[in-house]
């Protein structure tokens, strides 16, 4: 025994000791439970029950459309945003940008407290009291210098009350230098209305009512005016349900050189020569006037119109636009026969140097077809972006700044250093301003130049009101306490005014911005002649998200000024043999670039290219072949105004003489998610404004392409652009036209064979129906799914490895472009769009799902209510199920999900956060199903059958 133990260098006693220790170790770890605390409220707010969601109505501020939102909050933090069903603008829908507004609120790169720039150029955090004192000192300085009248305030569109308070505040200082600039500002649309009908307001278009819609470059499903509202209306006009009611769905023709998402949803896409839309509208108008225009037009007016339109014969127009004579005639015919029709225009991608003239031509087309007052409505001046000055007003201010005449500049909700071309000189001019104050909540390209940053709340933390359309008064309310030490812009202004001197604060007697807002709603209350008290009116407005009333049409007359308009071809900068027209198009994800700091939007695949995180240059394959460019080649894109680099992406939906690039990427700052992603196409554009309206011309240059020799293939989520005969996204004829063919095909009875026993369901069998005919492929549902289900964002490299985590995706397939609408005689030989099909793809919750029997641990199974369940705590990560899934909707957690603080505050507490090594997938939002069943049980009933 001694020998044995000695040989092993361990005696029996030691061995037993070791055994004791190894047994005690797990015991010890078992005994010490992690200490978790429960922190109750000190005083529980009346409206909060822990564990139960509270909803607040507010208004989306991600673009000027002003959609109503309902924000779901749990224990005092916003976790999900929904459309407000009772809001007249969006009627319950919400786009991806609106969904992602939460990631603005919880953005980890937000400015957390006031910042002052020191002499070394670094920002130093200071307290609010210090910051305000600093600003007060500057105001005293400017007053002593006697330059108070040139204090300037540049902003994007602000909530109306904030805007009017700023106006009053500046006026109290003796200045009127307030410039509002929106990169997508519709100045030309206002100017065209002014010249045509003496109405400078933006009209409302009744797309839902139109039987035939022609859009001259307006991307109304993506960014144009009110994309959610118009998408909803388009769905109504174009739907199968409408088709049944009205015998045939409305037809929609998109006229644009680059196939946008809007164009992909059109029945017909006409690849017009860039910037020549006016001539097509005029050509159509001429044919309509010849055939006999709308009855409302007087004989004299008809003669004048005929003279104006005389040069635009179909042949001449065909030559100018490269659209065939037959097509022009057909469009004109349809425009009058399918009444009421509607023509719209003014999209960013089509805003050439003749944009105002183009929009006048569109107005004329509507006028001769008698659409004004039927599908085109003018209202009182209250309409979207009514605060917007023109781009040229900003240019004038830049000149003043350049001359050193601006002693103090305020910036709010705007980023001109990013959204203006460098040749506009904004960044340089900023350096000439002795003191720049920014109210931005993010350190963007413009705020970087500020001397003092006084971070404003994000919209979800703010009070305010928005009047996005005639008769719509939306109300913003804070849905939660501010995340950081920020202060409402209005409160900062009032607080500073009180500190400057008595004279200044006298005219601004409100204690807080909230009081000011209520005072302005008192006015509205008085005007409406409500029978309730103001308090009730206010509470009701807060609950509903605002008040709405019917807006009355303003009847309009054609102004004689219109007959003096000269329609000419737009000029493009740059020339040369290989010069290609450069189309900078607005991104449905980033808008003008303000969405780029939200990881959900970066990871949402672009609807047409399915690319994530990057930017790219779209080029027609034939053009690329001519220039010797391969897909994925990194190109240097050069215009007379600058150079950017981007990878080539082959795109069939583009004219051969053009290239296109999305707007919104290429940030040099603006947080970790935006910075260094892609390129900014604005750097290629000219700074001169459009002459007639002073707007920015996005379609103004041509470019030369050179290969850099590098390759940078785009990261896309589509495996293939074609379906390759797999029949994933199938289409059928309109039922109304051929009802018999369907019954024949499907009436044959055949037996169903199955290896598995038939499934039985007791009370419920859940399903989800998606109207594929109505789906426009925008991707709002994808972002909503990320928000609801705590889906992690994995980044570009992981997506390149096929590791994106989206439970729901929109698959986009291009069909053979030789397949065209059979109702259109195709003898023209003009460019045709590839047919685009969108297929939302999510777990189908198959009856006998192939993923279920292969799971060795029973983590996935068919539940008694027809859901294909995935139990995360049971999953061991074999990934057999994903291998076996025919729809490829199962996602594996390769890495630990990362939500940099405070992004984690958005996480839905009703959904488990998955660990690395487990599979996850669509649950049909089982947490919502449970909630619905819970409510039903409370009322002792079943969830009603849909």
């Amino acid at each position, binding site marked *: *025994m001694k020998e044995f133990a000695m040989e092993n260098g361990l005696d029996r006693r030691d061995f037993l000791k070791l055994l004791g220790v190894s047994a005690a170790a797990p015991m010890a770890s*078992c005994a010490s439970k992690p200490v978790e605390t*429960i922190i109750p409220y*000190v005083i529980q707010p009346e409206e909060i029950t822990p564990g139960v969601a509270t909803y607040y109505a507010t208004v989306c501020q991600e673009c000027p459309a002003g959609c109503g939102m309902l924000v779901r909050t749990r224990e005092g933090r916003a976790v999900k945003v929904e459309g407000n069903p009772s809001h007249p603008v969006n009627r319950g829908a919400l786009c991806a940008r609106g969904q992602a507004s939460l990631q603005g609120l919880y953005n980890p790169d937000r400015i957390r407290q006031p910042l002052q720039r020191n002499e070394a150029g670094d920002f130093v955090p200071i307290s609010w009291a210090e910051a305000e004192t600093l600003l007060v000192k500057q105001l005293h300085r400017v007053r002593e210098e006697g330059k108070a009248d040139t204090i300037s305030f540049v902003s994007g569109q602000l909530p109306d009350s904030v805007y009017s308070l700023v106006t009053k505040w500046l006026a109290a200082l003796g200045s009127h230098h307030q410039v509002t600039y929106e990169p997508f500002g519709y100045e030309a649309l206002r100017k065209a209305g002014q010249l045509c009908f003496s109405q400078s307001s933006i009209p409302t278009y009744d797309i839902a009512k139109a039987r035939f819609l022609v859009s001259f470059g307006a991307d109304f499903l993506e960014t144009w005016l009110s994309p959610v509202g118009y998408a909803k209306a388009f769905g109504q006009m174009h739907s199968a349900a409408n088709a049944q009611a009205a015998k045939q769905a409305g037809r929609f023709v998109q006229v644009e050189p680059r196939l946008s998402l809007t164009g992909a949803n059109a029945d017909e896409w006409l690849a017009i020569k860039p910037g020549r839309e006016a001539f097509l509208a005029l050509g159509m108008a001429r044919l309509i006037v010849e055939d006999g225009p709308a009855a409302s037009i007087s004989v004299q007016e008809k003669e004048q119109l005929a003279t104006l339109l005389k040069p635009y014969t179909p042949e001449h127009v065909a030559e100018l636009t490269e659209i065939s004579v037959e097509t022009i005639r057909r469009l004109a015919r349809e425009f009058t026969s399918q009444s009421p029709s509607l023509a719209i225009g003014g999209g960013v991608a089509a805003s050439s140097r003749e944009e105002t003239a183009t929009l006048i031509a569109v107005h004329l087309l509507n006028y001769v077809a008698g659409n004004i007052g039927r599908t085109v409505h003018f209202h009182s001046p209250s309409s979207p972006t009514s605060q917007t000055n023109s781009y040229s007003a900003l240019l004038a201010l830049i000149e003043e700044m350049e001359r050193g005449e601006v002693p103090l500049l305020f910036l709010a909700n705007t980023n001109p250093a990013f959204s203006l071309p460098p040749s506009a000189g904004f960044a340089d001019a900023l350096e000439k301003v002795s003191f720049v104050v920014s109210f931005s909540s993010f350190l963007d390209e413009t705020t970087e130049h500020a001397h003092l940053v006084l971070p404003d709340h994000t919209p979800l933390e703010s009070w305010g009101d928005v009047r996005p359309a005639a008769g719509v008064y939306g109300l913003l309310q804070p849905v939660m306490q501010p995340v950081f030490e920020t202060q409402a812009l209005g409160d900062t202004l009032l607080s500073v005014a009180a500190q400057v001197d008595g004279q200044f604060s006298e005219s601004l007697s409100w204690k807080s911005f909230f009081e000011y807002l209520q005072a302005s709603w008192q006015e509205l209350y008085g005007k409406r002649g409500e029978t309730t008290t103001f308090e009730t009116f206010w509470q009701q407005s807060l609950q509903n998200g605002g008040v709405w009333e019917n807006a009355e049409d303003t009847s309009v007359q054609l102004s004689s000024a219109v007959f003096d308009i000269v329609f000419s071809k737009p000029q493009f900068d740059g020339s040369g043999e290989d010069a290609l027209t450069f189309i900078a198009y607005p991104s449905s994800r980033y808008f003008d670039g303000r969405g780029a700091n939200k990881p959900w939007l970066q990871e949402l695949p672009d609807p047409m290219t399915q690319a994530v995180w990057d930017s790219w240059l779209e080029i027609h394959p034939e053009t690329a072949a001519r220039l010797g460019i391969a897909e994925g080649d990194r190109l240097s894109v050069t215009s007379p105004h600058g150079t950017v680099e981007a990878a080539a992406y082959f795109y069939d939906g583009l004219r051969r003489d053009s290239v296109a690039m999305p707007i919104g990427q290429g940030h040099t700052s603006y947080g970790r998610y935006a910075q260094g992603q892609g390129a900014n196409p604005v750097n290629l554009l000219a700074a001169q404004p459009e002459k007639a309206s002073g707007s920015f011309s996005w379609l103004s240059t041509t470019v030369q392409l050179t290969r850099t020799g590098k390759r940078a293939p785009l990261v896309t989520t589509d495996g293939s652009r074609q379906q390759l005969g797999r029949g994933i996204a199938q289409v059928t004829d309109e039922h109304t036209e051929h009802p018999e063919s369907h019954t024949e095909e499907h009436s044959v009875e055949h037996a169903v064979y199955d290896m598995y026993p038939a499934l039985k369901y007791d009370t419920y069998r859940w399903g989800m129906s998606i109207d594929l005919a109505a789906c426009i492929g925008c991707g709002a549902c994808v972002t909503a799914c990320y928000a609801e289900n705590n889906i992690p964002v994995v980044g570009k490299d992981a997506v390149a490895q096929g590791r994106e985590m989206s439970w729901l995706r929109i698959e986009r397939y291009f069909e053979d472009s030789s397949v065209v609408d059979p109702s259109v005689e195709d003898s023209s030989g003009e460019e045709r769009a590839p047919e685009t099909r969108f297929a939302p793809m999510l777990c189908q919750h198959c009856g006998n799902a192939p993923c279920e029997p292969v799971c060795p641990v029973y983590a996935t199974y068919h539940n008694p209510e027809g859901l294909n369940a995935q139990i*995360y705590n049971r999953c061991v990560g074999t990934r057999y199920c994903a291998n076996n899934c025919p729809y490829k909707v199962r996602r594996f957690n390769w890495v630990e999900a990362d939500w940099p603080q405070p992004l984690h505050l958005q996480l839905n507490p009703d959904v488990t956060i998955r660990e690395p090594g487990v599979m996850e997938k669509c649950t049909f939002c089982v947490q919502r199903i449970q909630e619905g069943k*819970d409510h039903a049980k409370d009322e002792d009933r079943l969830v009603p059958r849909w």
Partner: protein
Amino acid sequence: MRFPLQALPPFRIILLFIVVPAALSATLYQPDVSGGVWREGKAAWWDVKLLDWGLTGWGHAPRQPIAFSHKLHAGDYSLDCLYCHSAARVSPSAHVPPVQMCMGCHKKKTENLEIQKIQAYWKNQEPIPWIRVHTLPAFTRFNHKRHVRAGVECQSCHGAVQKMQRVEQVSSLKMGWCITCHEENQVSRDCLICHY
């Protein structure tokens, strides 16, 4: 070499080597896949027996920042549980009452040190950092409202709280334990009821 028979331990050593490790592993073994619908009804014996006898939370009775006595409030004074934990009736979460609620009764000046603590929290407008006694894993949902409304006594899971000076965990809160009750009452045993 002859196997050193004399090196074999006596019976006591066999006990230490074999029986103790076996017993330890049997009790410490916490199977992730215990219970569940696939075993057609019966939860594993170790779920019901061994784990419920302790070792996984039984006797977990942390010292709280205030020595609040449930025995006094719920027992001697017979306050209804839902008087303070009112959310249990309307929310998935049972909810610990806000300090304000304690102050509803304990406003008066007192020599009781524990009550003075509450008053100090109230004076400073600070919440009381109670130590959690009953913890469910993050991947599990439990809806208090449904159980309370179905007439399940609070004591069925939390034990005779009205007799406890300091609250302690008396149920294992293991899945097998949940399933046993769901089986007895013939309610759903679908995984998705609790795991999503």
